[in-house]
């Protein structure tokens, strides 16, 4: 009634879902986001032992295509993110020349920028 677990629910939770000492992974943490541009002092605290830190970049090479959705479709910013990953993939093996720059150079008018 107060939004918290009843005795029965607590016991179910404790038995079915709670991560405890018997589990290899004792907890899960999401990475803290920080903004270097704001000169925030980056406190990269190491996750405590047994805590699985979730990574948003571990599988970045998998992000070059829209993954299947269920009831919520991909947002524009997600599609944008995927297209950037595809662009990065495309440029990964470039040596000196940058194809993006070569493509845009003919359209650069200095009066537009100076």
């Amino acid at each position: 009634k107060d939004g918290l677990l009843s005795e029965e629910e607590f016991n179910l939770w404790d038995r079915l879902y709670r991560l405890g000492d018997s589990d290899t992974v004792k907890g899960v943490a999401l990475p803290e986001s920080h903004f270097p541009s704001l000169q925030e002092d980056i406190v990269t605290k190491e996750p405590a032992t047994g805590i699985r830190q979730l990574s948003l970049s571990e599988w970045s090479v998998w992000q070059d295509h829209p993954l299947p959705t269920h009831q919520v479709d991909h947002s524009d910013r997600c599609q944008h993110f995927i297209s950037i990953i595809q662009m990065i993939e495309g440029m990964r093996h470039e040596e000196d020349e940058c194809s993006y720059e070569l493509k845009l150079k003919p359209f650069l008018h200095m009066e537009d920028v100076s």
Partner: protein
Amino acid sequence: SGFRKELVSRLLHLHFRDCKTKVSGDALQLMAELLRIFVVEAAARGVCQAQAEDLDIVDVDQLEKVLPQLLLDF
């Protein structure tokens, strides 16, 4: 099953500056539904990823793979 309105109200009040801020029943219902949709979407996408890898259990790796796009979609 889903999120109870009282639980959602407590969660929201964690972040209100003014503890006297009130949330209408409709807003709580909507927030509860949004949270439910988020959880089901995360779970269903994790299942898709596990099935794509021929696994019959969704482990954290499968969730991690779908996490960037999931977070961008909400």
